[in-house]
């Protein structure tokens, strides 16, 4: 995404169990119920890589937001 801009993320949980989207660097934390999606806003961000995880399945649920 663009650095310096606010964006809305739509996070979809396709599993039958809940997940918690969490990112220390993005300062976001939100529960996503099973088979649902949630919205949250991130940014404006400085350029860089921002990691996020699914806290309930930390070993496998990982991702990155790259701001340029």
């Amino acid at each position, binding site marked *: 995404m663009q650095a310096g801009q606010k964006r*809305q993320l*739509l996070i979809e949980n396709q599993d039958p169990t809940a997940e918690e989207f969490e990112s220390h660097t993005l*300062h976001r934390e939100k529960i996503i119920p099973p088979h649902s999606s949630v*919205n949250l*806003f991130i940014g404006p961000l400085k350029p860089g890589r921002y990691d996020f995880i699914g806290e*309930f399945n930390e070993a496998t649920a990982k991702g990155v937001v790259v701001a340029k």
Partner: protein
Amino acid sequence: MLNAAFIVFRETLEAALIIGIIAAATRHLPRHGWWIALGVALGLAGAVGLAFGAERIERWGAGMGHDYFNAAVLAVAIAMLSWHNIWMASHGRKFADAAHRLGNSAKRGEIALSAVTIAIALTTLREGSETVLFFYGIFAGDGASVLSLGQGAVLGLAAGALCGLLLYRGLMRIPVRHFFTVTSWLLLLVAAGMAAQLAQILIQADVLPPLVQPLWDTSRWVAPDSGLGTLLHALIGYEAQPSATQVGFALAVLVGVMLASRHARRA
């Protein structure tokens, strides 16, 4: 198994620490244990209800339902804790000196305790609902992992409760002349931490701007992932990189309650 233990531990730690402080801070009020237990029970019942109603809440509010709900819960909890502190400022001394007084005093004590029960119920509700959702996810898995994850979760729960108990015991050791000052300050810091969390939720839902992000960065001194960082976050909502809005909210609660307490003490 340890992974599950960690997750549940972190969720229960926050509630357990707050309950520990409140249990100590209300030691002089009659039957305070009963009220606290009621708060926990109500919170747990609510947490189960919330976990199962999570989907419906999320859809309400165009995907922000959960954030609005959490924000409302935090706001009320902050109000209850603030009210308790201010009430203690005006009545606390009298209670500490005459712990056995009945009648009118007992009734005022009950009003203070009901505020505390609400604060505990709401805190348990918030942390508990995440734990319940996590537990539910465990039991949806296969048999082998259920046992291992279940053990981890129970371990985490016990560890969190133990920390709350340790804090309570530690506080009870403080000499009486300092005791209420310490517990009042702790509760005030807890309320300020909740205010910072409230601000964060509103920023996440795009209701408030972060203004300056971050206002400062203390992750070199206390990393948010470290043991101390986790403890401070659970207790007073410590953020290594807080936004200006978060700091503003926390300061507003700190200063607001301090001023109101001072005024109440003089009245």
